[in-house]
């Protein structure tokens, strides 16, 4: 087994193979590494051959899993060797040993570039391969234009061009901001005409990456893709060597179909027809054959075709054909096909409404849950989870519970989480939900996260009817021998709160309850003890008249734990002991927990936490997002005309100096009506027993995209009907009867700058807002106050959310009692930078008056900014590294409202853009910095520079930079809006448009958007 002349390497490999055990192997490796190290140290004596041999040995050792922390330099230096054999080794070993983050790679950039632009074809290939495999930012910066040239060059041979295509793909994928692909649509179209299948395959991969980011620029390439598919499908002039088991390059077919999935539709009817012919041929013509590889290849194409059909949402016949095929696949014996059938059925659930057809296969899918293959079981679980709804929840959840007992450990956590979520989402009745969760804890306590039991406690607390049932169940579980600790926690909690509801049942007297819980105390861990102590305190409170014997027992426990080493336990014991001596006052202090504010389940969010870092955002995910945004645009359309963020209407101008006057005005208003004076102070005061709550304080972003998708869809329908209803209502009625007090627009602007105040007020109702913002999340509370002595009925509040905000408004009661105020929490999550606004549609009926108002919600861009000071050392490198569009944008703004520089600085500061004096030597300029928070950008530093002209204060030059192109643009526009012609406080309040002359009402009626504008 001689190895092209490298005897030393063969000998070394043999030695390693002959090592009896790992220890001997390590010794041999260490010896070799020592040898190589000394040889490298006096490099002068090394021949190129020896150098080659040693770096191969290093790679081999590295591959075996040993650390090789030297010699990288030698490998890299071989790259610049003049002869092919050394150079080749240098390139291959370097690209295998190092990754893009190694500094050593910088040393090679010049050599690599010389090889790429040089004339030697073989050197070009080596260099392109290295850059394509491990190229990082430095490479992208210095090499991208050269690589682009090679790809397009007519004088290069295909072998160079196909490598150039993939090399460019890598550079673009990693650093899309560095690689300039402006105007590439023509070039790409040209590349897709390529005759050489190797070059075409590589170019198609590049194309997929390009359209994944921006399909809109590449519409002209779409027909070309369809041509490629036709050419392949009809097997026209494909060289024999490019067919694989008789199938014309299945890889190219798959890639082409993948690229097409990034386009939202195929509009041109001819192209569409051709494409569907091809797809039809694939769907119909794929048979199961004996040869495994042929089968795999043809099914690879088939599954991609299925995905494309699902995406293009073809005529119904084709879709049902797909479902039929998948139904067949999930029942076959071949495990790969079964796996893929399940996987694609789950995907199908995401994109189209085929739930009913898929439900027919429920039995088969449940069988797959018991498949010997964990990969298949996982798919089945996912699919069951996705297809579950009210009609089949009971069956599916019970199936999951049954499976839980035998499931692999690796799956149990996911399984129990999913079962819990489904039980919560689709529970036909709440007692069933409690049953399921308790069973879950009983069967798989180790895998039930705290969130799950917190959630069931929340449910029970908020549903009085459920409390006796839950307490009874908890009591039953306590009778079981050896129950899981989580079960102890949840039972103890429930019994502490609600065992008095059972008092008349046998075995449920306070004493007995205490005894059975206390039995568990010695077996539980430290975090559970405080819960038990709270339970004891509660039991004590509920045993009225006090039972002296029970009291002594419990006091004994408290006094024992008063000296516990754990602070939490110690404090509780001491405090409960003291409290329980207060006699009757105890009842007030230890009263039942109040209802929890309705929150979205934190479980669902948790279920989706596993997001992988992928190269391109998958077509499927993009599609779901598109669908979401489509759903939203449908609803947005009517209000869009009216939403003041639209530039043509342009009244998003905030009176900067009028804050104070507004403030006082608000205060006056608040004081003028007694019912709402507590508005600003109505945060729930910290409870004496807040620590009882502490294990239940479920925090964290309570939204989940699954949920919100559904919300978005239902939301759209709701709004649509709401808008209709509005259009039907006679405008005259609304316009003349109820008028807002004060200027609604001004109130909104004021709230853009502060976090609490009044959003809207009229003779009947007052809506206040109090907000807390933390990074990309916000928690608003709407205070709906009825100012009258009669109830407000048919109260409705609807949020029209722009696509960049996730909004969760908790339920608003239909009726607000006289002189009462209700609080409605509103959770906001900022997904990405945008200036669009959310609108609250609020309506109610008072007597015969139907009032309907649309209010802009002050969840504006600057709420997600946090001022941050930057020093010159931090600022300048950042500023320079963000070079040019789209990350750094500059604009000359004209028509600026003239104001002194100081005023502009304080204006910026009030929007959380922190002005940093001294950074710019020119005193006429302002430099400001801030951090923007959103889910997509995370925390992102934004830098702003404004250069003013002392001679002409109506114009200035503004430069905005951040690490995200959208953010830069949105922030720039936002600041511009604030600077241009800000209405000063002295401006007359904008006419309240509800006074619009009745003659305009027919127009408004026909155009809900215009009406909305009028209402605002």
């Amino acid at each position, binding site marked *: *087994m001689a*190895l092209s002349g490298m005897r030393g390497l063969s000998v070394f*490999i043999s030695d390693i193979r002959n090592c009896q055990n790992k220890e001997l192997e390590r010794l041999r490796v260490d010896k070799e590494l020592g040898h190589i190290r000394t040889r490298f140290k006096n490099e002068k004596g090394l021949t190129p051959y020896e150098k080659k041999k040693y770096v191969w040995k290093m*790679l*081999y050792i*590295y*591959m*075996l*899993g040993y*650390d090789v922390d030297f010699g990288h330099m030698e490998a890299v230096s071989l790259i610049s060797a003049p*002869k*092919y*054999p050394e150079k*080749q*080794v240098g390139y*291959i070993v370097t*690209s*295998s040993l190092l*990754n*893009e*983050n190694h500094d050593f790679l910088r040393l090679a950039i010049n050599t690599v570039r010389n090889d790429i632009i040089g004339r030697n074809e*073989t050197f070009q290939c080596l260099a*392109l391969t290295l850059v*394509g*495999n*491990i190229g*990082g930012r430095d490479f992208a910066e210095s090499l991208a234009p050269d690589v682009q040239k090679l790809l397009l060059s007519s004088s290069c041979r295909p072998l160079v061009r*196909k*490598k150039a295509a*993939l090399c460019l*793909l*890598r550079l673009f994928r990693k650093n899309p901001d560095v690689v300039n692909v402006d105007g590439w649509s023509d070039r790409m179209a040209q590349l897709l005409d390529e005759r050489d*299948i190797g070059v075409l*395959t*590589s170019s198609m991969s590049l194309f997929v990456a390009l359209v994944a980011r921006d399909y809109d620029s590449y519409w002209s390439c779409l027909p070309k893709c369809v041509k490629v598919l036709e050419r392949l499908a009809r097997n026209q002039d494909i060289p024999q*060597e*490019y067919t*694989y088991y008789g199938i014309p390059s*299945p*890889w*190219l077919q*798959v890639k082409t179909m993948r690229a097409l999935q990034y386009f939202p539709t195929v509009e041109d009817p001819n192209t569409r027809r051709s494409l569907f012919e091809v797809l039809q041929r694939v769907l119909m013509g794929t048979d199961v054959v004996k040869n495994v590889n042929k089968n*795999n290849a043809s099914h*690879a194409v088939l*599954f991609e075709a299925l995905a494309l059909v699902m995406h293009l949402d073809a005529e119904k016949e084709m879709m049902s054909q797909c479902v039929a095929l998948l139904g067949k696949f999930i029942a076959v014996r071949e*495990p*790969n096909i*079964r*796996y*893929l059938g399940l996987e694609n059925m789950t995907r199908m659930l995401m994109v189209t409404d085929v739930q009913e057809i898929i439900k027919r296969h429920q039995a088969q899918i449940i069988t797959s849950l018991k498949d*010997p293959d964990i*990969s*298949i079981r*996982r798919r089945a679980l996912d699919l069951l989870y996705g297809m579950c709804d009210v009609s089949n929840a009971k069956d599916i959840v019970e199936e999951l519970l049954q499976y839980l007992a035998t499931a692999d450990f690796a799956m149990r956590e996911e399984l129990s989480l999913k079962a819990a979520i489904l039980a919560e989402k689709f529970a036909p009745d709440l007692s069933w939900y409690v049953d399921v969760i308790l069973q879950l804890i009983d069967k798989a306590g180790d895998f039930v996260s705290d969130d799950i039991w917190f959630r069931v406690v929340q449910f029970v607390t908020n549903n009085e009817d459920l409390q006796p049932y839950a307490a009874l169940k908890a009591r039953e579980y306590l009778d079981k021998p050896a129950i899981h600790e989580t079960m102890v926690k949840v039972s103890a909690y429930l019994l502490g709160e609600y065992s008095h509801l059972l008092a008349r049942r046998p075995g449920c007297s306070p004493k007995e309850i205490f005894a059975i819980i206390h039995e568990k105390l010695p077996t539980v861990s430290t975090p559970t003890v405080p819960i038990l102590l709270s339970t004891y305190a509660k039991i004590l409170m509920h045993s009225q008249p006090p039972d002296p014997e029970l009291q002594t027992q419990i006091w004994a426990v408290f006094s024992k734990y008063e000296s516990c080493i754990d602070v939490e336990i110690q404090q509780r014991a001491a405090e409960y002991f003291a409290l329980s001596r207060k006699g009757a006052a105890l009842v007030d202090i230890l009263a039942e927990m109040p209802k929890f504010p309705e929150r979205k389940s934190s479980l669902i969010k948790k279920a989706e936490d596993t*997001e*992988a870092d992928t*190269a*391109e955002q*998958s*077509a499927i995910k993009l599609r779901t997002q598109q669908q979401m945004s489509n759903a939203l645009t449908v609803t947005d359309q009517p209000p869009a005309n009216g939403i003041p963020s639209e530039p043509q209407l342009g009244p998003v101008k905030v009176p900067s100096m009028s804050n104070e006057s507004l403030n006082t005005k608000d205060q006056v208003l608040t004081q003028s009506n007694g019912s709402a004076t507590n508005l600003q102070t109505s945060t729930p005061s910290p409870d004496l027993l807040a620590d009882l709550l502490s294990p239940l304080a479920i925090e964290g972003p309570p939204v989940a995209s699954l949920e919100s998708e559904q919300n978005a869809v239902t939301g759209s329908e709701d709004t649509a009907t709401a808008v209709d209803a509005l259009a039907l209502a006679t405008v005259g009625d609304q316009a003349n009867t109820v008028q807002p007090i004060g200027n609604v627009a001004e109130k909104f602007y004021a709230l853009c700058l502060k976090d609490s105040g009044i959003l809207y007020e009229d003779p009947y109702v007052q809506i206040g807002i109090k907000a807390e913002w933390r990074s990309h999340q916000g928690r608003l509370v709407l205070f709906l106050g009825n100012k009258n002595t009669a109830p407000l009925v048919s109260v409705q509040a609807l949020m029209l959310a722009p696509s960049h905000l996730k909004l969760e408004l908790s339920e608003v009661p239909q009726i607000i009692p006289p002189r009462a105020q209700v609080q409605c929490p509103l959770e906001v999550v900022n997904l990405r930078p945008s200036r669009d606004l959310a609108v609250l549609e609020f309506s109610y009926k008072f007597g015969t008056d139907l009032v309907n108002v649309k209010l802009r919600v002050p969840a504006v861009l600057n709420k997600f900014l946090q001022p941050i000071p930057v020093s010159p050392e931090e600022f300048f490198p950042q500023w320079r590294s963000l070079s040019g569009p789209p990350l750094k944008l500059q604009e000359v703004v004209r028509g600026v409202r003239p104001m002194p520089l100081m005023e502009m600085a304080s204006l910026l500061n009030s929007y959380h853009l922190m002005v940093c004096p001294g950074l710019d030597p020119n005193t006429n300029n302002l430099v400001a910095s801030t951090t923007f928070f959103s889910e997509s950008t995370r925390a992102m530093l934004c830098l702003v520079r404004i250069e003013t002209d002392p001679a002409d204060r109506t114009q200035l030059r503004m430069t905005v930079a951040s690490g995200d192109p959208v953010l830069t643009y949105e922030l720039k526009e936002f600041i511009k809006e604030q600077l241009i012609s800000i209405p000063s406080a002295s401006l007359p309040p904008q006419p309240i448009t509800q006074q619009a002359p009745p003659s305009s009402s027919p127009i408004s009626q026909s155009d809900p958007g215009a009406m909305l504008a009028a209402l605002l």
Partner: protein
Amino acid sequence: MIHFVLLISRQGKVRLTKWYSPYAQKERTKVVRELSGMILSRGPKLCNFVEWRGFKVVYKRYASLYFCMCVNEDDNELEILEIIHHFVEILDRYFGSVCELDLIFNFHKAYYILDEILIAGELQESSKKAVARLIAAQDSLVEAAKEQANSVSYMISQATK
């Protein structure tokens, strides 16, 4: 895209690794350990896909060797499975019915061949003939350089330097 390629023997020995996504040395070792634990223990009649850390690993066993490729969750699994087979067929042609020993002692050849099939974790060439031609050309370049180095005139010129 393919994030990495892994060849492991049935005993868990690594025969080839190629990383197209940046993994530090420590992570690489960890990944190999985790995956060999998962894949080597799978029975013969199961599917060729394993879900792992939000990715998918497509693998296939050829005699004593497992060929594994890690891809994104929504990549086309069967396509990857046939890339593996494509790679194996090319190795087979090059070595003439390839066996594990060939790959152990000529692991560098396997790297050369892989580089002609994949770049940046994407398929570069789907023609076996084209790959074979390129590898042959590389081999002859190396041979030519060796012959030149061994030629008498070259030795004389080196000696007189």
